[in-house]
């Protein structure tokens, strides 16, 4: 797994992908920080965190699109799958490499905290909790993007489908549908279930939990379990191809 991880991480910085991801992410994050915090002269980063999640929706597909689809297109996946490594190691190696690049991006924006220290007194513990939430959201997005990359050999399709799903998740979070009201009578039970599901996939609400300065284990588990689920699904997809 270590070898795969190193290979993937190196690949990000031997090609423009890693640099493009970092520069675009830092550009938009800095823009938000400068206007939301420095412009409004406030040290609370809760609005910053809520908005930075939206940047992830656009930049993470760039980070994950090539993870498996590129290998598949260039047929190097056959080499990889016949190598003496477990499929889970391959998937984890790639996942961790993408997560590391994400972490570099998030960590770079942590420089905003000492900048605020120059002009005010930000609440460091609360801010770090916000960063943890942001990172976990990114980890979930990376896992989902990697899964999408594993099901297609086209990088463009992988990127666009990931963007579409992430965008749908983001927009659904802000919707106020009430299925239990729409589906009355005997279908009320189904409506209630759909309401729960809609509430469940509300990633914005989970992110808000971190922006309040509390470390709640429910959203931590939420993001990690979903990331785990998509890593697992990716393993199944690759294994299936391996068996074929």
């Amino acid at each position, binding site marked *: 797994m270590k070898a795969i991880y190193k290979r993937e991480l190196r690949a990000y*910085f031997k*090609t*423009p992908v*890693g*640099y*493009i991801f*970092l*520069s675009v992410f*830092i*550009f938009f994050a*800095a*823009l938000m*920080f*400068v206007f939301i*915090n*420095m*412009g409004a*002269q*406030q*040290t*609370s*980063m*809760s*609005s910053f965190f*809520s908005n930075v999640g939206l940047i992830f929706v656009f930049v993470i597909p760039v980070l994950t699109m090539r993870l498996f689809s590129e290998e598949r297109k260039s047929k190097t996946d056959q080499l990889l799958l016949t190598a003496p490594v477990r499929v889970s190691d391959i998937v984890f190696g790639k996942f961790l490499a993408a997560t590391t690049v994400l972490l570099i991006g998030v960590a770079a924006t942590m420089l*905003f905290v000492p900048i*605020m220290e120059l*002009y*005010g007194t930000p*609440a460091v*513990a*609360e801010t*770090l909790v916000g960063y943890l939430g942001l990172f976990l959201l990114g980890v979930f997005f990376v896992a989902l993007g990697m899964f999408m990359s594993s099901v297609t050999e086209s990088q463009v399709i992988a990127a666009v489908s990931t963007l579409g799903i992430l965008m749908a998740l983001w927009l659904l979070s*802000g919707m*106020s*549908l009430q299925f239990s*009201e729409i589906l009355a009578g005997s279908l009320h039970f189904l409506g209630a279930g759909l309401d*729960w599901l809609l509430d*469940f996939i509300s990633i*914005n*609400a989970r992110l*808000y*939990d971190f*922006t*309040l*300065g*509390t*470390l*709640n*284990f*429910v959203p931590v*588990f*939420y993001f990690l*379990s*979903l990331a*785990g689920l998509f890593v*697992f*699904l990716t393993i*199944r997809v690759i*294994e299936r191809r391996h068996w074929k």
Partner: protein
Amino acid sequence: MKNQKKFRYSLNSKAFIVGAVIIVLLLNAILISLNDKIALEIDFTEDKIYALADESKEIAGQIDEPTEILILTSGVDNEILSMVKNVLGNFGQHNSKITIREVNVVKEPAAVQAYAKELETLSQFSLIIRQSDRYEIVNSQDYFSQNGFSYIERLVTTKLATFVDGIHNATILFTKGHGEQVSEGNVGILEMTGYEVGQIDTLTEDFPAAEDSVVIISCPQVDFSVEEIDKLDAYLDLGGNVQIYFDPVYCSTELPNLVNYLSEDWGLIRNTDIVWDMSQMIENSNYMLAQMSDHEITAPVYDSQKRVGYGPANSIGRAPEKPANVTIHTLLKSYDSAYAKADIQTAISQGSMEKASGDAEGPFDVLVAASRENENVAGELHVGHLVVSGSALIFDALTADTRFANEDILLNSISWMQGGESSITVRAKMLPGGSMSVSKTQFWTWLVILVVVVPLAILVAGILVFVKRRYK
């Protein structure tokens, strides 16, 4: 045979996937429902904004009938809603009889039909707290103060207390008709604490029942008549509670009747001087730091190491002879470094508040509490309580700032007057975040560095690596 194996693998694979999805959903569902019952979070906010105060826990614990808190929403999820849910969730965790429910007023109008009249004035995220056929309203407009404090917990606790038998808060009456200046902030804090706040015209109205009331004379500019003073004295004789706030700036009138009454009947002298302390100024304000003296009122905040501020004040002195049935305690005094100018006119003529020759040396009492025992003809003992402040600002702007203990002193003084019972003193909580001071030049400098230089540098590095590899 091969096909059968393939089929079995495919079936197993699908079962695995479905199983994994179900497990993830189930575990999350369990955790979400557990979160309603037990605290699964750590509060990292500076002022522990989501941890319930002991008073709130006590009140929540005393709710013995199913009580529902409805959060009125329009389906929009945002930080305020998360914050409200977080605070309310703690009440639910403390007592399973308290349940929290979000109601989308657009999609579920039937659920709030009974409150249609109130809904007209309520904003999003307001609360309806209901128990059988009784209900209380909390308007979300009252959640936050302008200077960054949250009153959510206090408001909910106060409303929940109305469902608890045996909790009854006193009525607080501000006198009127003497040019009194009443701080709106103070009234808001008292109302949020559950007190009924009103006014009394002491010239035409009778004083209320002594045991259930506190009368506040806030910064009067017109003296009280002899008849009013007699009524006031009779009220105190029956065990009444009175707070009087003087001020050298906002109400420097002499008020001979009131001042003589305090001197002769209570042994307290309101000096017309102006206490100032250049070395104890609180940053960016006209407030100075005061020292707390040990008393029932100050004791609960003494250990919190919070500071107490006061504005320019009249010093409160002691008369040479004090009635034997009166006990006087200093609550707040200035530091030794304080000095007092003879009066506001002297300060104006000197053109500066710096210490000058002829100024009296500190320390000076600026807030005192006194009690007076009185036995009536039937042999019943009544204790009247009096709090006198030399600065109306002691209970003004700083009361809304929880970094200072001024609010605690105000609420504790009222609680002391009522024998230490009845008030719910849940503090306001400081909201996360603060302010920065960034000049325009600094703003544009950081904009250029962070938004242009850094991303561009990374991009150029990427291009260089790419070009180098391509032409290697």
